[in-house]
């Protein structure tokens, strides 16, 4: 699908396949990727975390504020505080879903609004500007590893850390396999004595922590945070990326590589629409159409696979 979009776009305008475009894609990717990586195990357990967009906004602003007040703080401390704050916000979702048994959609729609509200309270009408943010942090987006004509920015490398971790945990560890088991057949999981509650708890904290990390990446990439707009609609993009990446909303399966592919597709489309000079008014509609087309291809493919299994 991604290849298809790239080929179509290049055919229309050869400029598309330029290092500049690639750099923009690579810069667009980290925040979305990390949020989607957080979202993925939640969806595998048949859940959903809609609150992450606001988590990103709140963490980005809070960490920006911490950096503004203490300009001497080293960058790793900023990342640690972002992770910790995200995990704390995620644990609120975890308690509501796993222990109070509130449906995930309801829980996270509630916290989506609540976290955005907190961001407004923290901001008190102010914004975080580039000159408030440590250059060591914003440099992570400007510099990186040069591979020929393109630059893989440091933010993306940072995003690969949770990606590699999640890939290993889901594929190899007991807790990861139990995530698939709980999503695939919750009744059987309980009958076989698995701790369903602990798994649900863990995935929402993970989602929150990832959104926290994404908040710091957001700060590093833009260097500018407004409490009203940072991370808005990001949760929908992340969910779309996960589903486009082959994780069914009904849970139970999916891979980290698929999620990566889903994010790349969304990033390419998003950047591509601007490069191709599609009028701004049309971009959102075109973006939505591509997402729906990807989902349709996926659904048709899945149905074909299922019917072949039945026939066998």
């Amino acid at each position, binding site marked *: 699908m991604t290849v298809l979009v790239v080929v179509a776009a290049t055919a229309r305008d050869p400029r598309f396949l330029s290092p500049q475009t690639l750099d923009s894609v690579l810069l667009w990717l980290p925040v979305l990727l990390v949020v989607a990586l957080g979202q993925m195990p939640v969806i595998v357990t048949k859940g959903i975390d809609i609150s992450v967009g606001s988590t990103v906004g709140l963490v980005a602003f809070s960490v920006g504020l911490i950096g503004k007040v203490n300009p001497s703080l080293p960058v790793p401390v900023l990342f640690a505080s972002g992770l910790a704050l995200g995990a704390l916000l995620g644990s609120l979702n975890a308690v509501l879903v796993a222990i109070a048994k509130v449906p995930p959609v309801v829980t996270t729609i509630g916290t989506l609004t609540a976290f955005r509200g907190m961001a407004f309270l923290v901001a008190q009408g102010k914004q975080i500007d580039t000159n408030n943010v440590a250059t060591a942090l914003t440099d992570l987006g400007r510099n990186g590893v040069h591979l020929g004509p393109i630059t893989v920015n440091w933010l993306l490398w940072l995003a690969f850390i949770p990606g590699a971790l999640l890939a290993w945990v889901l594929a*190899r*560890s*007991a807790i990861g*396999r139990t995530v*698939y*088991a709980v999503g*695939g*057949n919750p*009744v*059987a*999981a*309980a*009958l*076989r*004595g*698995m701790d369903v509650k602990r798994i649900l708890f863990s995935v929402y904290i993970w989602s929150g922590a990832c959104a926290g990390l994404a908040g710091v990446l957001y700060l590093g990439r833009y260097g500018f945070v407004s409490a009203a707009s940072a991370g808005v609609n990001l949760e929908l993009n992340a969910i779309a990326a996960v589903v486009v990446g082959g994780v069914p909303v009904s849970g*139970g*399966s999916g891979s980290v590589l698929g999620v990566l592919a889903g994010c790349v597709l969304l990033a390419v489309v998003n950047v591509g629409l601007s490069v191709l000079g599609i009028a701004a008014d049309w971009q959102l509609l075109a973006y939505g159409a591509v997402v729906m087309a990807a989902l349709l291809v996926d659904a048709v493919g899945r149905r074909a696979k299922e019917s072949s*299994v039945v026939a066998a």
Partner: protein
Amino acid sequence: MSSLTARGLTVAYGGVEVLGSVDLDLRPGELRAIVGENGAGKSSLAKACSGVVRPVAGVIEIDGQARFFANPREALDAGVCLVHQEPLGFDDLSVGENVCAGAWPRKSGGIDWKQVHNQAAACLQRIQFDIDTRRRLASLSAAERQAVELAHGLARGARVWFFDETSAALTPTESARLFAVMRQLAAEGCAVGFVTHHLQEVVEHADVITVLRDGKLVGVLDKGSFTQADLVKLMVGRSVELDSPSAHKPGETVLRVRLLCVPGAVQDVSFEVKAGEVVALAGLVGAGRTDVAQAVCGLSRYRGEVEVCGQDVRRRSAAARWREGLALVPEDRQHQGLLLPLSICTNATLASLGTFSKVGWLDNIGIRSATVEKGKELGLVYQSPDQEVRLLSGGNQQKVALAKALLAKPKLLVLDEPTRGVDIGAKYDVHTLVRQLADQGVAILMVSSDLPEVMALAHRIVVMRKGTVAAEFAHQDATPEKIIAAASGGDSALAS
């Protein structure tokens, strides 16, 4: 050597007792069959012994030690494993992971994968199954999935086994293989109990048979000490109720089903129901009776003809069929028949809102009075018509489901297990109502696993087995023994 002794096990669901003070002994080296009609409490007994449901009374001893199981995990830890009718398991995990699920061997830094696959392969080999443990579970056949389920029990070190109608989904060859495995487990000193409907299996494989009826233990038979006919008599054997159907005055044909096929469930089923007639679909669970009822009501795809009042209704949706005088009371009232959190009024008039609306607005006064009137007719016990249906007892819920169907003024009423899980009083009320409706000329198609109910209500009885019609009896020719024999494919000679 392992054994299980249960004394006075009692199980109740929502206040309705399904198992009353039953004893069970599983001895090492023995295959014990647990038999009974649908609803006799066979599965409940197996579940109560393996921690899936909690008995309200009774004692369970494993190897002479009293045990209490709060959940299946505790039972597994004590060595008691229940193999379910539908294999459980995780489609997207590997065979090896499924076998070891819940107790994956660990080593520092994660799962010991080598150990997972070795252990799984060893367990599968013990029951003579050679399955690549790296395959996804979803790619396995029903029999192989069953083997994975068994291997899971072996991996957990199970010594006391229950099989709950495990052979139902298997072909004869596969099921022979399963019984060979059970025999092997017994030979290794395990205690094995199996629940089944199929009398042939009981005669062939069981060393001892526990017979249940209406949640009570009615007999323990030793191999060779009985005939299939004795077994049937013991399973059915309650005093024949004196009730019989209302006078049979059939009118015009209301429902004609010809060569009905539902893929995977029903094959070439034909029958008719006339006005004023009650026709029962009898048979075992899984024989395709509900599939026939659902096809008639337009709830599933089918081939063949379904005619209502002389009109082929193939192209009519379920809703259109309701409008033309077909009403269904489904078998699962909690999920299919009623909207539990809504009021009695809302539920009762759900299928007939058209008659209660004036220029698009609902006539709430009319709805209330119609509900109250119908409630009185059915002997519904309630506090207010605005009461939530979930607060009613099973019998009263069923009456609301019936009221919903009756307010639609049906010409053909399809009842699927109309008295399952309701108390005796409500059952009597429902039976009286069915007779009255037949007298008023309503055609009634009833699916029922309750033989006395079939005998008491049906003018004609269509017995289904494995998706086909096995026999059809007029009321005066039918006996419970004949019906059971036809339904379970037993020796037809014993029917006479």
